[in-house]
């Protein structure tokens, strides 16, 4: 946002209307706040609800980035305080204070103003490195939004040194100068800020157990509080969903969420399918907190105990830049190194340009390897740019990417989505426009997920959940293009598959091509969409194998069912003719029926061919199957043995068919097998509840 002051030629003649002087008088600096107010939708502050979300999102993204860069396992507390709890029920919005506390490295005192007080100031924009934030708009824009809507400054506690006191700084942005003004600056012992522990019954209890803002976990760290006009509401696009998804994509992070005491009245019940239950479960298992309705604290536990690998910064790839950027780079290099040669510039400032290639480029545009950068004329730069496009170059290095990883994705999904089948896959890194990227996908199927709706797609870019503009996103298109019908799913033409399915797509890249500055949808590059589709197909194939196996087991179940259904009648009829004891006949027939079906279970695959033991296991990498719907099929609806009139002495309980005790290979398979991809924690909770015979979820 450079100021748009332009000198106009004072010689301009007097024409109708304003003179140049008059016009010049009106031309002035655009104030940052004015710009902000006019463009807040670009930054994700279009409405009260979204403003609250964006504020949380920017603070959380920053916190996670900081922790990871410092090599600290993130431990986050997200607190939303309702500052106007007695507002009327009809109020469209309310005042909230959002506080995000991390256990990151803290911020040195002199950087505080720059980080939180300036738009477009950051460490991330100028380099090609995989990170959550990119432009450095985020947190300062959130602070600006708070300042504009409430007039309150941003409150920052930061403790960069475990042995020293923390800084307590309050910042108000000077919207004219695009600089922060410090309204309070003192040192304090109060880190992490004490008052949050006493916020509610839930936080008090957690704090007592030492799992909420304990001094040991938060030896260093930063706490940011922003007051803003917002609206807290659950459901799609809510803070809850954002945190839940963040937890899925960042299983190495522990997040504690203290929601406001009051939820906006309307659609408070619009809970996310299949996930709210999981949240409740987490609360119950990890921290004895109240239900979320009464302001219970939500804890997203840590799923894995290792940080994602540190990502390297890379130089731009010649194929990944525009002409303008090339010119700028030439200028920058010249400023840095007055007598630098083009030959050196090419090798130093780009990746994948070797000495040979650099010499070749020099020759192509008709200069020598000694030619200085300062002697390069714009036409020559243009030739060079053209040469970049024509030259065959190795793709950029991909060690700059840190995918979530199959194991971690499974751990995250397991934690956040209550399903019975999970599969994940990570593709090899690829390149679009000279920028490396990597696509990952995971799916969760069945369990408590609703079966009659379009599948839910959860999207991530560099581990950040994307909550809006789903249909504009490349990943959404990739999901609809994936042939789900091949994987035993229903899929209406060119739309999302229908069924109890959650699809997760993650794009890791040094530069994620968003469709807009609010970073809500990934631009639709063919290379990206293709990779997404391939990743989904990998997961889909695993799902198909599972579903077909399940279908087959169902058929076997039916088969057993058919036999067991009729043998009672047969026993009775044979008894009537021969006088042989019906019970003895029934038992003998039952035994045969079970032996028969057990043999069938073992020997035949779905085509009726004998199946080898290894086959099933070979494809099981990246798959978790929870012992659930499958196992109960084995015992589902045991046919009640008829009460044989002639043997009244037999106790009724003895004549009931006992659930078959057959242990087939598939039976064993279906027990929570976590194979190579078992997550460190939490272990999958086997659900032993046998499903009803009429349960519609049973196939």
């Amino acid at each position, binding site marked *: 946002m450079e100021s748009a002051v332009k000198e106009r030629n004072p010689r301009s003649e007097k024409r109708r209307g304003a003179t140049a002087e008059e016009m010049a008088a009106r031309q002035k600096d655009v104030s940052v706040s004015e710009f902000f107010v006019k463009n807040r939708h670009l930054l994700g502050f279009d409405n009260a609800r979204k403003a609250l979300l964006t504020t949380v999102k920017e603070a959380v993204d920053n916190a996670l980035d900081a922790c990871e860069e410092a090599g600290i396992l993130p431990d986050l507390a997200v607190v939303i305080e309702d500052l106007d709890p007695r507002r009327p029920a009809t109020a469209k919005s309310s005042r909230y204070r959002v506080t995000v506390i991390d256990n990151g490295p803290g911020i040195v005192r002199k950087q505080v103003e720059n980080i939180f007080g300036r738009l477009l100031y950051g460490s991330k924009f100028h380099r090609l490195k995989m990170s959550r934030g990119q432009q450095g708009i985020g947190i300062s824009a959130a602070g600006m939004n708070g300042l504009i809507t409430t007039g309150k400054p941003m409150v920052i506690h930061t403790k960069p040194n475990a042995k020293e006191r923390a800084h307590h700084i309050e910042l108000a942005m000077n919207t004219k100068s695009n600089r922060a003004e410090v309204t309070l600056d003192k040192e304090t012992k109060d880190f992490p800020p004490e008052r949050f522990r006493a916020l509610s019954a839930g936080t008090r209890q957690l704090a007592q157990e030492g799992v909420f803002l304990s001094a040991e976990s938060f030896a260093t760290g930063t706490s940011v509080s922003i007051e803003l006009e917002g609206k807290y509401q659950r459901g799609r696009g809510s803070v809850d969903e954002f945190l839940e998804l963040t937890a899925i994509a960042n299983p190495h992070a522990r997040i504690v969420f203290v929601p406001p005491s009051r939820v906006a009245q309307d659609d408070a019940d619009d809970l996310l399918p299949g996930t709210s239950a999981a949240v409740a479960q987490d609360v119950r298992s990890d921290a004895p907190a109240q239900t979320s309705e009464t302001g219970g604290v939500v804890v997203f536990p840590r799923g894995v105990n290792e940080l994602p690998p540190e990502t390297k910064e890379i130089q731009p790839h010649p194929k990944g830049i525009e002409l303008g950027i090339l010119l700028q780079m030439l200028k920058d290099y010249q400023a840095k190194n007055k007598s630098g040669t083009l030959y050196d510039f090419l090798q130093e400032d780009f990746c994948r340009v070797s000495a040979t290639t650099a010499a070749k480029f020099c020759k192509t545009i008709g200069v020598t390897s000694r030619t200085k950068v300062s002697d390069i004329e714009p036409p020559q730069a243009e030739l060079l740019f053209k040469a970049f496009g024509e030259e065959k170059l190795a793709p950029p290095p991909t060690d700059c990417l840190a995918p979530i990883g199959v194991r971690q994705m499974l751990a995250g999904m397991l934690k956040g989505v209550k399903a019975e089948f999970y599969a994940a896959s990570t593709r090899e890194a690829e390149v679009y426009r000279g920028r490396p990227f990597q696509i990952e996908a995971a799916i969760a199927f069945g369990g408590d997920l609703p079966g009659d709706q379009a599948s839910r797609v959860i999207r991530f870019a560099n581990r950040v959940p994307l909550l809006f503009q789903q249909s504009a996103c490349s990943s959404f298109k990739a999901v609809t293009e994936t042939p789900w019908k091949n994987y035993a799913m229903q899929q209406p033409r060119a739309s999302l598959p229908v069924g109890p399915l959650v699809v997760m797509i993650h794009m890791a890249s040094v530069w994620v091509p968003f469709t807009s500055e609010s970073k809500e949808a990934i631009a639709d590059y063919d290379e990206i969409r293709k990779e997404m589709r391939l990743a989904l197909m990998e997961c889909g194939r695993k799902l198909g194998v599972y579903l077909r196996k399940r279908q087959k087991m169902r058929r076997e179940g039916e088969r057993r069912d058919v036999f067991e259904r009729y043998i009672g*009648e047969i026993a009775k009829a044979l008894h*009537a*003719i021969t006088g042989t004891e019906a019970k003895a006949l029934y038992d003998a027939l039952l035994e045969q029926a079970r032996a028969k079906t057990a043999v069938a279970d073992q020997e035949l695959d779905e085509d009726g061919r004998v199946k080898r033991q290894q086959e099933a296991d070979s494809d099981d990498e990246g798959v978790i199957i929870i012992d659930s719907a499958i196992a109960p099929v084995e015992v589902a609806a045991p046919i009640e043995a008829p009460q044989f009139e002639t043997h009244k002495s037999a106790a009724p309980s003895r004549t009931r068919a006992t659930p078959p005790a057959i242990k087939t290979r598939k039976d064993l398979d279906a027990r929570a097998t976590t194979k190579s991809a078992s997550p460190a924690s939490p272990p999958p909770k086997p659900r032993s509840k046998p499903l009803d015979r009429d349960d519609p979820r049973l196939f």
Partner: protein
Amino acid sequence: MAKKNEKAPAESPQSSKGPSGAAGRVKERDAKTQKKIEALAQNLVKRTLSGREPIVEIPLRTKSNTNWNKKSGILEMGGAIAERPLFDLKSAKQFMQTTLHASTIRDLIDAQKTSSLRGVYYKAKHTVAGTKENTFDNQEESDPILEDLEVTLGSTREELHVFAENRGAMVGNITIIDRGDEINCRRMGSGGYSMPSIVEPDIIEFRKCEAKFVLHVEKGTVWARFNEDRFWEKHNCILTHGGGQAARGCRRLLQRLNQELGLPVICLLDNDPYGHYIYSVIKHGSISLAFESSRLAIPQAKYLGIRAKDFRQCGLDDAVKIDLTDNDIKRAGEIAAYPWFESHKGWQKEIGALLTNGFKMEVESLITKDISYVTEVYVPERLKAKDWLE
């Protein structure tokens, strides 16, 4: 005849429900049938208790298992057997139904009652314990199971105490005893004697018979024409119809008249493949009832008409023509290929003529000449000339 009633309770508690006294007398034949049913069930019990899969073995009632016995002139069932195992998804239910029907039949015999096919279906129909499924969904499921039992046990339907609906009628110069009642077939009015499905000698006995032959017509309407014209009186015969494809009772009665009384059976059927087929079944038997052929087939039966040549010979009007359908043409080809027709020049010519004509004719078409043309001219002339196909 052994009195089985005292012995029965020891075998099965069910028999105690049976009536006692004179009505409860079990005939020797019934005892034999009961033994067969018990043997079938005992075999299944034995297999079950010894851990082997229970299987019902049923002689196959298919074309491939039907042989043409040229010497005796009837269709006979071959020796092929179909296994009906319990533990097969395709046959599990049928297996259950077979045992149910076996038990039902046993009860019927014990009670000394007969039941209609539909009655048996209802008797065995109930909800399978613990499910919402019925043992039988409809009679179409039940009837074939009974036929299976017939062939498996080697017992006739009447031996199983099962009967079908009456079908077909009879008048003529004969007196019969039906379950002890004397029936004078000369005094049957316009309706005739309704032919029951069970016409075995223990039910129907022949008494006084002056008739010299049997004229069997296809349908009741034609039969009514002959009866109204007192054809049987004028030509001293017995007049029957089978209501289309002759049922087992009708065929059995015709066969008994033919074999026991030596009466030739002469058929007057439509000139179409269906008429030819009816004749073929009366004469040689059918595939599905090949096991009964020896009791049903009348190898000496004659085909009097209608003949393909009759259109020209009798000078019939174009209006009587009914175009052959594609299916008729196909069917005619199949019938022409039957081994007993294939080697029969007369029949090859007849079917060839039908196809050359390209149309079929019903018996009623002769009415275009005169209402009683068929009874007064057509049949008498042909009989006199012995102009028939054999």
